[in-house]
């Protein structure tokens, strides 16, 4: 217990006054700008909910949203399946396996997704005769399949790197410990290594999902009517800029919700690591 100052009767000095430093002024001004633009955006959106544009196009936005979710989920799952052998190849000590896997990963990570999509959708059209003969033309003729094909291959490259990095990050002692217990390599891998690796990989996997959602907007350029595609169609028909505003709000909501859910999942799964 601290004795009060006999002359003033106070136990502690008063808290220092917060001064209006330049930084604080700048921060408040910027925040005021954000709040004002946020309020204006809300007003804009609110006043346009009943507008003919919104009435006419909102079902199409919903359709686009569903298409986007479909593209992203299908590609992510196919990519995840494909990433396992690639990651295994990357980690392999044999050059026959590691080299093609390395080339694959570098190719898909070194070129833009847009160019890859063009290559598959337009470029493979050069071989329409051969593809027809091989009975594959129905696949490469359809923009939907082309997009799924490209996105799956693309995300497989990224996911393979995530997987490989995570598995190689698990300390060697974990393997040795398993071997000392007389476990087979399969059991060690699936019961000891993989769970720890996936824990580390959670965050990069979350980022990859978000990147995929954002990247899927590229599908709109190759004639797919996903959320972005519907937006562009709505804009080209109405010349109303709110087309893009609604899309921006939709994408931000999707990405932010997903990010928050993912953070919750991660916090839940790694709660035994929290100190």
């Amino acid at each position, binding site marked *: 217990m601290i004795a009060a100052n006999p002359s003033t009767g106070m136990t502690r000095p008063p808290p220092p006054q917060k001064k209006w430093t330049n930084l*604080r002024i700048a921060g408040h001004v*910027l925040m005021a700008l954000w709040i004002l633009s946020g309020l204006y955006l809300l007003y804009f959106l609110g006043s346009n909910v009943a507008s003919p544009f919104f009435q006419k196009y909102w079902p199409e936005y919903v359709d686009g949203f569903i298409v986007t979710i479909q593209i992203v989920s299908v590609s992510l799952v196919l990519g995840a399946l494909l990433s396992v052998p690639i990651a295994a190849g990357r980690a392999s000590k044999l050059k026959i396996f590691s080299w093609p896997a390395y080339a694959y990963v570098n190719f898909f990570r070194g070129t*833009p997704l847009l160019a890859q999509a063009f290559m598959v959708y337009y*470029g*493979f*059209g050069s071989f329409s005769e051969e593809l027809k003969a091989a009975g594959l033309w129905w696949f490469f003729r359809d923009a939907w399949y082309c997009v799924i094909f490209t996105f799956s291959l693309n995300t497989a490259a990224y996911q393979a790197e995530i997987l490989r990095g995570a598995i190689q990050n698990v300390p060697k002692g974990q393997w040795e410990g398993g071997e000392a217990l007389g476990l087979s390599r399969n059991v060690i891998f699936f019961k000891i290594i993989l769970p720890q690796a996936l824990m580390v990989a959670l965050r990069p996997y979350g980022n990859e999902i978000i990147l995929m959602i954002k990247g899927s*907007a590229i599908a709109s350029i190759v004639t797919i009517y996903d959320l*972005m595609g519907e937006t562009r169609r709505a*804009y080209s028909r109405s010349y109303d800029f709110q087309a893009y505003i609604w899309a*921006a709000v939709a994408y931000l909501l999707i990405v932010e919700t997903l990010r928050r859910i993912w953070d919750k999942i991660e916090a839940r799964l790694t709660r035994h690591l929290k100190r």
Partner: protein
Amino acid sequence: MNEALTLLSFGEQGWGDTIASGVLITVSLALATLPIGLILGFLIALAKNSSEPSLKLAANIYTTIFRGLPELLTLFLVYFGVQIAIQEFIKLLGYDIYFEVNSFVAGMVALSLVFSSYASEAFLSAFNGIPQGQYEGGYALGLSRYKTMRLIILPQLIRLALPALGNLWLILLKETSLVSVIGLADLVREAGIAARVTKEPFLFFGLVLVIYLLLTMISSVGLLRIERWSKRGDAAR
């Protein structure tokens, strides 16, 4: 095979010069975006790193927005949004002129917005890697805040942020391809035109992929060198 070579050659019959000009546009767009994005990203990282909560929040809102929007959408928002805003402004002044935003500038602005929000995260984590004692040492030597930042913090910051920034550069290089959609005559657009005219899409889009691969490979080598240069002080120890 010969046909393909003729198509890719420079001069009257070939598309070589068109493609080359596209490469030039792609590279210059990326190079023009880089300094703006870096400076903006650094300023945002400073704001996020400051002790002032309102400034932090303002910076975080910025990054949340531009990291959440697809790059393509950001591009359209800037390209059409700025155009409409300026058009309205001109109308407000009482003139009736058609105004069109340069697609290069629009691309530069949009890519800078995206790049800076990612770069700010890279800088921020680099800031976290610098011990508090470095600032205190600077102040103890009587250096001003600005001089401490410039002479003591920044050189270490760059070294710590380089790997992440290198990755961002590669991403930026690939993202420039999106600008072809708003009509800038970059590599992808020129190749697309060539593909449509010659009906050889496989050849030209294959060329695009190869050129991008070359660009990223060259960048990787360059980045490795810069990284080694930035770590030359570590080797002595």
